[in-house]
């Protein structure tokens, strides 16, 4: 299952709620303001590090670049473009959007 998170971890609870019900082997894709969750050296960094123990974590590169944070991405978070987003949707059976 693929989970998309589009909210900043500093502003909303979406990422935390997502992590409560993510199954081992699932994928989490950070998009839009959700990409702020993918960074090193922030208060939210431990959250995503914890998530990476059980799930693959991706972040959408165009959204990182728009926000000027593409160079601050945590090691192990894979950055992908929209083509990669499409591939993830095809790869996993269902998608849950944590709006």
């Amino acid at each position: 299952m693929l989970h998309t998170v589009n909210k900043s971890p500093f502003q909303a609870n979406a990422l935390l709620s997502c992590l409560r019900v993510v199954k081992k082997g699932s994928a989490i894709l950070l998009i839009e303001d959700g990409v702020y969750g993918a960074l090193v050296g922030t208060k939210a960094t431990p959250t995503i590090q914890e998530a990476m123990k059980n799930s693959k974590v991706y972040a959408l590169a165009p959204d990182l670049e728009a926000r000027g944070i593409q160079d601050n991405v945590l090691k192990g978070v894979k950055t992908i473009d929209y083509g990669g987003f499409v591939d993830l949707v095809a790869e996993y059976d269902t998608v849950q959007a944590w709006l």
Partner: protein
Amino acid sequence: MKFSIMISEGPYTHQASDSAYLFTKAALEKGHEIFRVFFYHDGVNNGTRLTTPPQDDRNIVNRWSELAQAHKLDLVVCVAAAQRRGIVDPEEAKRNSKDADNIAPGFHISGLGQLIEAGIQADRLVVFGD
């Protein structure tokens, strides 16, 4: 593979419509089929032809209209959500005694059943919202 898309927010205010558009375009480029794009909640506001965005910015509505024409996309605006928000096609205008309509080319208004059908017919349904 067959995808359906649901868009829950209007143009510009939230990035949802941008994300959905770029996803849809990428999916088409990869040879996937887009069964339907369903506009719900404020998403219906993507379907008005009356926008005039700044010239140095993208034109979200026109982009959808053009993509629909190029790929015969089925862009469905939910009628119930559209009535709450004032998105109207000529038929709806007549039915509700409105003196104007504002639906953009390539969009059409239909019922919520189209969203369920989009879920049934497609292999994947992806939601973009707020």
